[in-house]
Structure formats: structure tokens, C-alpha cells
């Protein structure tokens, strides 16, 4: 029973747990809500661990398959299954959720139960997205995620939160609804099936594929976000509470890329090849232009948000050059960026909780009052810039290497990010951390407490582990990447 329904357990446990957290009631029992939330998130993480240990790494096929009829009239099924790529993303999700719960421990004092519950529900839905193998089930999880995120930004966010959260919601809704129309079209094309496996084999003309590709592209490009539909992200990030930013950057952005892997590449392979140049150009623009935009920011969160867009450009670049090494690099970059961007937002959160400002000009000389914090942030800044030995290096290096085999110019342009990325990250670091103590507020800063130290240390270890010994991650995805590439190489005409 337990063995057979492991994925369902990972999806529904946090959601049921969230109801338990809500049941603790108002803020008088906030402590209880925090403890229950932490327990639920830890248990969920423990539930997802056996997925990794029992996973057969030599097979690229879907594993842990579950299947139950749901809506017979439209042949929609509750079917789940994961490959290596989904597995890593699920582990990332359950890991980051624990960090988010711990990071909110003291910071969130209002409506604690609702805050924790929203993140737990998000966790369940995100795991659902990564494990759904029925298009409508995928869509339901995908869209349902908008609701908790909308509330997280809107309730606990910054001053301009309402504008940001409505923009976030409508932007993503527009993209997703067009995807829905595309899915329904495919449903009739495949003689009435929403199962992804059936959609992979249905024959489509190039025109059809181009339309479908564009519909999927809009949904996923908004989520990643790719240039030029990225404008919601800086707003959402700046206004979101720290936990919201972490989940947004670490996991939700990956869903767009995951969508490309699950939908665009296998369902519209010919269109993917035809339009790969278009995607590559957009990716390169994101990598270079957005990195330059990041240089011009004065707000730390905005800078990291732009840096996320730039890094996600690497992912889309890696996916659309159809080279195994670049593809694997893209997947590793997704995971690694999850850790690093999460860590960077947590660092900004640590500073923001003390100073209530994100402007770099309000800081300066933080290293003098917060030496431990400065050390942690140094490491994450380096990882963000892609320093060898950190996880940021592995993904970017593999992508550049893979792209180089396809087209040297692409690789060279993409490579400039190593300079630009280092420039904006380190410049920010210098302005915030180094120098003389700039004002009395900075002088009064207290260094990180043990709770903050704990989650920064855990993330540090992960980033270093992935940077120094990426084999466990790469081994998991080898066969799955082969399978996706094989599917995207078969013509459907």
C-alpha cells in the first residue's frame, strides 16, 4: 500500500498537513502551528527520500506509476509517474519547503498558521506538477498553485504587493489558459486521450505543431520567465515575503523548464527543431541583456530576480540545442539554481528582517558587524557567479561545453555571463558587505542566530556537495535525458 502510492503520499501528505496547521487556529497558538508545519515538512521530505533510493537509475522510463480513472467522460485519469528529472525536482521541492518553514520561524508573526499552510499546500501541488502524467491532472496542479502564491504575496508581501500579486496571477493565467486550449486540441487529435504517453505518439503536421508549440511556449515562457515576458518576476519577487521569493525562484521557475521538457520537446519535436533558433536567441538575450539590467539595480531583491532570469536563460539554451551534455547541464542548472537563488533570497531576507530595507545604498560594511553572515553570503555570491567547486559551476559549464559542440558563437555569447554574473553579484556584495560601516543602523546589526545559521549551513553544504561531487545528480538523470532527447528526435510529420 505504502510502496504503491508513494507519489500520492508525497502530494497529499503536505496538503492534509496544511489543514492540520490551519486547525491550530489563530495567532495565539502560533507556536503550535510552526511546530506542526515543521513536522509535516520533515515527514514529507522523509517520504520523498525513498523515491531516490528505490529509483532505478538505469532506466529512463517512468517509475512509481499510479493510475486511477477519474473523469471517464473525457478519459481523464489520475495517473502519476516520475523519471530522474522529476525525481530531482521533487527532492528539491521537499527540501526547500523545510528551509522555508524554518526561515519563517520568527519573521512571520501575523497569521502564522495560514502562512505555513499556504506553503505546505504549495509543496503538495508542486510535487503534483512534477509527477502528473495526465495532461489535465498536470494542468490542475499547475493552475491550483497560483492560488496559494497569490495569497502569499498579497498577504505577507511588501508595500506594492497588491499590484505585484495581481500582475503575477493574470500573467501566468493567460499563458496557462492557452495551453489548455492546446491540450484540448491534442485530446481530439489523439482520439480522446489526455495521457502524456499518447500525446507523444500522435501525428501532427508542422503547422499544427507550430501553433501548439507557441501555446505551450507562452504558458511555460511566462513561468520561467523568458525575455520578453519576464516583467512580472521582479515585481513579484520584490514584494513577496522571503519564503515566497525562495519558493518562487527555487521551484516555481523550474516548472516552466520542466514544462518544456514534458510538453514542447516530446509533443512538438519538429516545431521544437524549427523554432530552436528563436528560443536560443531569446535565451541569449536573457543571459546577456538581463544580466546587464541586473547590473543597474539598486534593490538587492530585484538584482537577484534579474540574475534568476539570466540563469534560467542557460536552462532554455541548454534544452534547445539538442545536445546531451547541454541538456544535462540545463537540468543540473535547474537544481543548482534552486539552491543558490533560494540561498541568496534567504540572505537578503536575513538583512531585511534587521534593517527593513533592500536598498543597497542603505548598507555598507556589514562584514564588520555580521562576520559569520558575510562568510556565508560570500560563498553563495560566488556560487551565483559560477565559481568552480560550487554547484553553479557544474550546470553552466556543462551547458557551455555542450553548446560549444553545436555552435561556438552561442557558447561565446553565453560565456559572457561568467563575467557579467560575477560583476553584478560581486559588486552587490562589495557595496553591501565590505567597506566602512556606513551608518548607525548597520552598526547596530546583530550577527545571525543559530536558526539562521542552521539553514544557511545546510544550503552551503548542499551547494558544495553538488559542486564537488555532482555524480549522484548526473547519474539520476542520464537515462531520463536520453529518453527525452530520443522522443524529441523522432519526427511526427
Amino acid at each position, binding site marked *: 500500500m505504502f510502496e504503491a502510492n508513494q507519489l500520492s503520499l508525497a502530494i497529499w501528505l503536505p496538503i492534509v498537513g496544511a489543514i492540520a496547521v490551519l486547525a491550530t487556529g489563530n495567532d495565539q497558538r502560533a507556536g503550535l502551528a510552526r511546530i506542526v508545519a515543521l513536522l509535516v515538512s520533515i515527514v514529507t521530505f522523509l517520504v520523498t527520500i525513498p523515491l531516490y533510493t528505490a529509483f532505478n537509475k538505469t532506466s529512463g522510463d517512468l517509475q512509481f506509476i499510479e493510475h486511477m*480513472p*477519474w*473523469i*471517464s*467522460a*473525457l478519459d*481523464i485519469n489520475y495517473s502519476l509517474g516520475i523519471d530522474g528529472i522529476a525525481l530531482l525536482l521533487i527532492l528539491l521541492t521537499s527540501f526547500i519547503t523545510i528551509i522555508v518553514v524554518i526561515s519563517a520561524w520568527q519573521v512571520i508573526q501575523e*497569521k502564522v498558521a*495560514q502562512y505555513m499552510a499556504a506553503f505546505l499546500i504549495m509543496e503538495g501541488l508542486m510535487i503534483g506538477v512534477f509527477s502528473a502524467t495526465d495532461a*489535465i491532472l498536470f*494542468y*490542475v*496542479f499547475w*493552475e*491550483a498553485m*497560483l*492560488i496559494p502564491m*497569490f*495569497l502569499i504575496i*498579497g*498577504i505577507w508581501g511588501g508595500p506594492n*504587493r*497588491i499590484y505585484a*500579486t*495581481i500582475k503575477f*496571477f*493574470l500573467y501566468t*493565467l*493567460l499563458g496557462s*489558459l*492557452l495551453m*489548455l*486550449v492546446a491540450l*484540448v*486540441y491534442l*485530446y*481530439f487529435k489523439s482520439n480522446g486521450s489526455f495521457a502524456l504517453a499518447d500525446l507523444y505518439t500522435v501525428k501532427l503536421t508542422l503547422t499544427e505543431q507550430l501553433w501548439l508549440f507557441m501555446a505551450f511556449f507562452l504558458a511555460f515562457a511566462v513561468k520561467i520567465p523568458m525575455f520578453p515576458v519576464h516583467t512580472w518576476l521582479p515585481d513579484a519577487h520584490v514584494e513577496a515575503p522571503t519564503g515566497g521569493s525562495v519558493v518562487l525562484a527555487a521551484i516555481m521557475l523550474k516548472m516552466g523548464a520542466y514544462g518544456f521538457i514534458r510538453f514542447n520537446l516530446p509533443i512538438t519535436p519538429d516545431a521544437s527543431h524549427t523554432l530552436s533558433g528563436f528560443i536560443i536567441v531569446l535565451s541569449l538575450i536573457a543571459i546577456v541583456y538581463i544580466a546587464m539590467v541586473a547590473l543597474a539595480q539598486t534593490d538587492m531583491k530585484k538584482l537577484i530576480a534579474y540574475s534568476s532570469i539570466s540563469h534560467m536563460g542557460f536552462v532554455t539554451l541548454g534544452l534547445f540545442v539538442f545536445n546531451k551534455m547541454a541538456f544535462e547541464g540545463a537540468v543540473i542548472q535547474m537544481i543548482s539554481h534552486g539552491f543558490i537563488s533560494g540561498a541568496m533570497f534567504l540572505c537578503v531576507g536575513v538583512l531585511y528582517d534587521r534593517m527593513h530595507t533592500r536598498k543597497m545604498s542603505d548598507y555598507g560594511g556589514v562584514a564588520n558587524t555580521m562576520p559569520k553572515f558575510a562568510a556565508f553570503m560570500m560563498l553563495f555570491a560566488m556560487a551565483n557567479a559560477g565559481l568552480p567547486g560550487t554547484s553553479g559551476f557544474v550546470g553552466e559549464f556543462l551547458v557551455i561545453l555542450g553548446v560549444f559542440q553545436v555552435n561556438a558563437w552561442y557558447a561565446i555569447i553565453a560565456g559572457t555571463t561568467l563575467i557579467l554574473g560575477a560583476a553584478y553579484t560581486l559588486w552587490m556584495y562589495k557595496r553591501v558587505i565590505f567597506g566602512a560601516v556606513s551608518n548607525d543602523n548597520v552598526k547596530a546589526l546583530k550577527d545571525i542566530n543559530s536558526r539562521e545559521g542552521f539553514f544557511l549551513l545546510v544550503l552551503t553544504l548542499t551547494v558544495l556537495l553538488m559542486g564537488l561531487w555532482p555524480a549522484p545528480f548526473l547519474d539520476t538523470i542520464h537515462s531520463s535525458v536520453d529518453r527525452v532527447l530520443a522522443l524529441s528526435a523522432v519526427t511526427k510529420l
Partner: protein
Amino acid sequence: MNNIFADIQLAIPEIFVFSMACVILLVDRFTHERMPKASFLLTQATLLIALYLNLAGAPASGTMKAFNDMFILDGMATLVKSMIFILTFVVLIYSHDYISERKMYRGEYFVIILIAVVGMMVMVSASHFITIYIGLELLSLSLYTLVAMNRNSDLATEAAMKYFVLGALASGMLLYGMSIIYGATGSLDIESIRNAIQGMQSDDVMLMLGLVFIIVGIGFKLGVVPFHMWIPDIYQGAPTSVVLFIGTAPKIAAFAFVMRLLVDGFQALAVSWSEMLTIFAILSMGMGNIVAIAQTNLKRMLAYSTISHMGYFMLGILSANPNGYSASLFYVIIYSFTTMAAFGLIIMMSRAGFEAEEISDYKGLNKRHPWFAFMVALVMFSMAGIPPTVGFFAKLSVIQALVDVDKYWLAVVAVLFAVIGAYYYLRVVKTLYFDKPETSEPISANIGMQFVLTVNVFALLLIMPWIGVIMDICSEAISKMG
């Protein structure tokens, strides 16, 4: 000539409800002072017994006709009637406290509602222009009276007046159309009309003229753009308990009304009416969703939202195939239950002398009463069609019906307007969760009603695993149509 008793047997639920309406009218004279609840309880019992009679008398297969083919009983009629009873039953539970606080708790209120129910039943089971018209008028006249029930309110009186004048105009249009069709085909019986049309040219001017007038009549009754003017005023002006009724059961009855007229009668002209309905649908989705953005009154906003939902509802019908009809039926059932929850919540938030109908009345509800806030939010998300609420599946079903008949561009238009629509529903959620409360007055509501409402709202979410069953029921009902 059939045996008259066999005929009567088919119409037992109608006869029962109508007799009970007369009985309650009499009984209320005597119990009014001493046992004011008697009429309410009798009405509820009537609805439950009628539900039972209706299900017990359902034809096992095929269709049954009675009264010289003026009356028809088939799978769709049984399903739609059952829904009408259930919706009316719950509506009356929600209305109970509201009407007694506003001195409308009188026998007439229940009697008129029962007569409206009879009107809907006749309309649903009509297979003849005359029966359709009688049913429709019975319903409409009852509704005009209900809107004007609160005699002291200027707004309500104005709304009732508008409703009456426009409704009469629409009935006139419908009758005029019917008379032209009678001239063209020589019959008022729907089946004979269908047969007669099959033998005629599909661009026959007489037929077209008649069809246009009938469609205009339908458009008025459904309240689709450009015949929607009465809806916002009624929704805003009428007592909330009456809007609750108007917004739910009659919408489902209207589905049957459209099916009997257009699909049963004019199937051969499907190409023509499908085009006309397409225009209505696009205009309704556009107008409804865009104008709703500008509203500050929640009831008025929901009125425009109704207009847009009627546009979505038509998407299934204009696909002109059984898949589309069952999608529309599914849509309108989901929509009715969602609307019922929405107005139920407005009623619950209202107190004697205070109508919680401005959106700003809901500011910071999450701080005052998180449970209610969550319910309102859930209803709004369901109306916007965001998964995992049932509203999403309603939208999915009509969109798949459109794609099925290759109307891709219409599906895309529907989707784009859904995004615009999401904005004003989100704004309500924003008011609930992100704004600061202006009063800290506690909200009190009758426990029984809270319970029913909670079940109603959570059904919008928790019905998910069984949503397929409802879809199956709908398509089965359509396949059993005459």
C-alpha cells in the same frame, strides 16, 4: 386518444406541486399568526416529495408523451426537474432568516415560489409551443411578483417594473416568432415542426424570420448581450433572497427551454441559430466580463458575471451536437450551485437593516472571520474557473465542446475573456485578504444555514474526485432526449 389517467400519471409531480401551492395558500390564512413556520415547512416537504415523485416516475428509457403530445417526459426533463427541486430547497433554507428579518416571511412568498417551480416544470416538459409559453409565463409572472415583494423599497419596485416591461416585450417577440413559424409550417407541435422544416429549404425567409424572433425571445429570457439590460438592475434592486432564486433554478430551466425550442424544434436550422448564438456568446462574454470590472456593488458585479457566464453556457449549445449540449448542461448545473453559494454568502453577511452588498463591506473579512473569507474566496475562484474548483471543469467542458467542432478561434476568445474575468473575481479576494477591516463587528449567522452553506461551498472543491460522475449523468440525460 390516450387514456386520460395514463396522461395524468406522467404529470403527477406538476399536479402535486401546484395543488400544494393552493393548499399552502389556504393553510397559511390559519397558521400565519400561531405557527408562522408552517408554510415554510410545508413548502420544503412539497419540494422533497416532488423530487421523489419525479425520480420515481422517470421513464426507464426513451421518451413518453402525454396530453396529445403537448407534454413530454425524458431523461433530460427528469434531471433538470430534480435540479430545480434541490436548488429551490436549498435556496429557501438560505432565505429563511433573511426574509423573516425583512418582513417578507409570508405565505405568499412560498406560494409564489412554488408556482414558479410549476412554471419551470411545465417549461422543461413542454413539447408544444403553447405549453412552452404557458410554462414560461407562469415562471416570469411569479418572478416579477417576487422582485416587487419588498414593497417599501424604491429600488425593488423600479427593478420589478423594468423586469415586467422588458419581460413582456420578450414574450411578445417569442410569440410573434412562434406565430410566424406556425404560418410557415402549419403546426405548433415541436415534433411536427421539426419534420416540416426538414422538408423545406433551409434559407426559407419565413422560417428565418420566425427563428430570429424566437432567438431574440430566448436572448431576453437568458439575459445575453444585447438583451441583458434588465439583469444588473434586477440583481441589484431585488431582495437578495429573490436574486438567489432567480440566479439559480430558472437558469437550469432555461437550458431545457433552449433545448426544446432550438434543438428539438429547429435542429435542421442548426447552422443558422448556431451563428446567431455565437454572436450572443462573444458579446456576452466580452460585455459581462469587462463591465463587471467597473462595479463596486457585489450584487451588480455578480449580475455582469452572470451575463458572461450565460455567454460561456451558450458555447456548448452552439456546438450543436450532443457533446456540446451535455457540456452546457454540466456548465449550467455547476454555475447554479456556485451562484447559490455566492448569494448565500451575501445573505449570511447581511443583517437586519444592513445589506452586505458593496464589495467594500468585505474588507479584511479574513481578519474578522477567516472561515467565511475562505468560503467567499473559494466561490470567487470557482467562478473564475481556476482549478481545483469545479468552475474549471465547467469551462473545460465547454472549451472541449468548441474544439470538438473545430471552433478554435472561439475557444481562444473564450479563454481570453476568462483572463479578463479573473481580474474582478481576484479583486474580491484581494478585498477579503489584503485590505484592512473597517469594522470589527462580529458576524453572526444561524448554525443550520452555516452548515448547509459550508457543505455547498466545499462541494465546489471536494466533489473533484466524483466530477466525472456528474459529467456522465449529464451526457446520459442528453442521450435520453426525445
